């Protein structure tokens, strides 16, 4: 089986694999419209990885589900354009999406405990999509499933095929989920916090495995995570999301070497580092993400930003191009004279960001 080899021989479309333009996803709730994703654009080439990073509630999961068309039937507004190999996905019926789900694009979810069917044998969960999308016999599908389990480094694959998910450990289950997602040789894989529920050692194993499979199959990947450490060595590009928007996007090395957005800087500095002395005080981001029903006027990060100026509270910055595919959304970017001046001014005034440290109750805001 070599789904990666002949796929491009007769590929009719030579543009980017995925082109998302100004996608919006709103949820209707009793409190009003929750703007979970609010105008996101991104492009993904074949075989590349984009990392989407942000806190809970930044819209990163909704974005990936919205691209794939995995949203509730009712109470959702989805606008913009999602083109997969030139095929527009917005407005397409779920019935027609079935030809893409599993076959062309698939998804790995955060929790391997709940994303597998507990009353179905592992083997059947893998062959299900193979039998659905590929015209093969049952015995051939089983053989394929065994090969898949072997390729995701599950020992004794033949025996495992006949087992139920509860008989496997968390890491094994996530490997099975990867096998299910890879079964039909998709061109695009969404991985939504694939390792958040796993131990560090197992996390490293699973990330390595995904990278190897991606190389072998020349598959593009969208890696959604809250941990900048997970994407640092593994993504070609990184998009940082905040309040439903991309606030910074750049090739990985550029982002880490020359970040412009105060939010990215804050996110990175809040991670405890191994090479820091113990008891080093961690930088924190005061407050919490904004209410997406009534987002603040101006820059959405302004209430928590150490660089904030009056202009930020009034006027929302547009995505600015810093060259080399580096986009950011800030009036007083990190590492520029304006940014330094703004930070200095705030320090001199002794003004912490306007938001008081988490004292009030949440008002909700996530769908």
């Amino acid at each position, binding site marked *: 089986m070599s789904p990666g080899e002949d796929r491009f021989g007769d590929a009719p479309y030579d543009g980017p694999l995925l082109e998302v333009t100004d996608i919006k996803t709103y949820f209707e709730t009793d409190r009003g419209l929750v703007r979970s994703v609010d105008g996101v654009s991104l492009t993904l080439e074949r075989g590349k990885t984009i990392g989407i990073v942000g*806190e809970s509630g930044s819209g990163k999961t909704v974005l990936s589900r919205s691209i794939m068309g995995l949203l509730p039937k009712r109470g959702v507004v989805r606008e913009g354009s999602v083109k997969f190999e030139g095929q527009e996905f917005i407005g397409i019926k779920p019935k027609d999406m079935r030809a893409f789900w599993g076959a062309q694009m698939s998804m790995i979810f955060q929790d391997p405990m709940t994303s597998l069917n507990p009353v179905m044998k592992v083997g059947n969960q893998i062959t299900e999509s193979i039998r659905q999308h590929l015209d093969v016999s049952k015995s051939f599908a089983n053989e394929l499933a065994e090969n898949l389990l072997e390729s995701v480094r599950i020992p004794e694959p033949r025996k495992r095929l006949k087992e139920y998910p509860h008989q496997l450990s968390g890491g094994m289950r996530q490997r099975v989920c990867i096998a299910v997602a890879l079964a039909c040789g998709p061109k695009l894989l969404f991985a939504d916090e694939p390792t958040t529920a796993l131990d560090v*050692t197992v996390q*490293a194993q699973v990330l390595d495995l995904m990278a190897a499979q991606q190389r072998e199959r020349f598959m593009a990947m969208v890696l959604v995570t809250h941990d900048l450490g997970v994407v640092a*060595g593994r993504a070609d590009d990184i998009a940082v999301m905040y309040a439903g928007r991309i606030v910074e996007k750049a090739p990985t090395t550029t982002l880490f070497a020359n970040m412009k957005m105060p939010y990215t800087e804050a996110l990175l500095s*809040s991670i*405890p580092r191994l090479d820091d002395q113990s008891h080093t005080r*961690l930088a924190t981001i005061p407050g919490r993400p904004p209410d997406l029903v009534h987002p603040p006027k101006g820059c959405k990060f302004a209430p928590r930003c150490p660089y904030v100026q009056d202009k930020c509270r009034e006027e929302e910055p547009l995505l600015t191009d810093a060259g080399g595919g580096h986009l950011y959304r800030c009036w007083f970017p990190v590492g520029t004279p304006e940014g330094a001046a703004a930070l200095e001014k705030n320090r001199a005034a002794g003004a912490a960001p306007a938001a008081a440290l988490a004292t009030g109750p949440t008002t909700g805001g996530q769908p």
Partner: protein
Amino acid sequence: MAGTGHAHLRPADQDLLRVEDLVVEFPARGGQKVHAVSGISLDIVEGETLGLVGESGCGKSTTGRAIVQLPRPTSGSVKLDGTELTGLKGEDLRKLRPRMQMIFQDPISSLNPRRKVRDIVSEGLDIWSIGDKASRAAKVDEVLEAVGIDPANANRRPHEFSGGQCQRISIARAMVTEPKLIICDEPVSALDVSVQAQIINLLQDMKDRYGLTLVFIAHDLAVVKNVSDRIMVMYLGKVCEVGVPDALYQRPSHPYTAALLAAIPVPDPQTRPDSEKVLGGEIPSPLNPPSGCRFRTRCPKAEARCAQEEPQIREVVANHFVACHFPLEPGEVLDFTKAGAGAFVGLDERTEADADL
């Protein structure tokens, strides 16, 4: 690793908590036993934070819970401030409960959703009827204030607060009885990085302000390094390595510690993930743990001796203890793709050795 021994314990008169040869076993089907914790010894000096690290299933949470006698240890001794807890029953043990508290991993499910935050936090005071009603209310306000929750919101219920705030409330609940010892069981694992930093800083502040002694259980080594004064690495119910954070991280002596360190994703694109440094395989079943050193099945340095003889904890350099027959030299790099090569050398002897484990 699979180490036992007392070499790492300090003189008995210095410590607040002293645990010796703690064993916790759970009955399993067919007369088998789950060997969750097999002979752990540890001590904590007042005002110190002990970090317990290891993968899921290494027994770190069970150790934390057995210290507060939930569940009761199968054998061994747990002394809090000189009082032996394992023999205490009923009311005698209950009287000591306010002095040791726990904070759990999932902040939302560890708070009763139907009760008001004020009632949740003041319950410990109410049970022990500490002070009158007004002074209890004042105390609740004080701890809520200290953890960064506005007491004006104390009449709300947990669902109205975010995960990070719920964890602050859990900390307030643990603090309110003025305990000597707080066991934090993965208190930041369920939180976002930005909130995680807030909670870690808060725990540090609380410790400085109230002179708390903490047992901090986590699987994230970077977090543990930040909060701990002393770290104990565990594997499958045994101690691997004990030391002060900076030394332990600079110079891991146990192959398992090195593997854990190598697995941490580094937020720096220049550091490419290296699959040779990734520990393969999974933690073996605690129903039937490997003989000798329990880590030998995944260890690249394992030899026949590791299968036959359990390593004892010994001091490699001052204040740095390891339970390994072949500890790492400084700067030694392990290739985990070789793991297990020599590990099964002693496999034949295994059945007998396991029988008397």
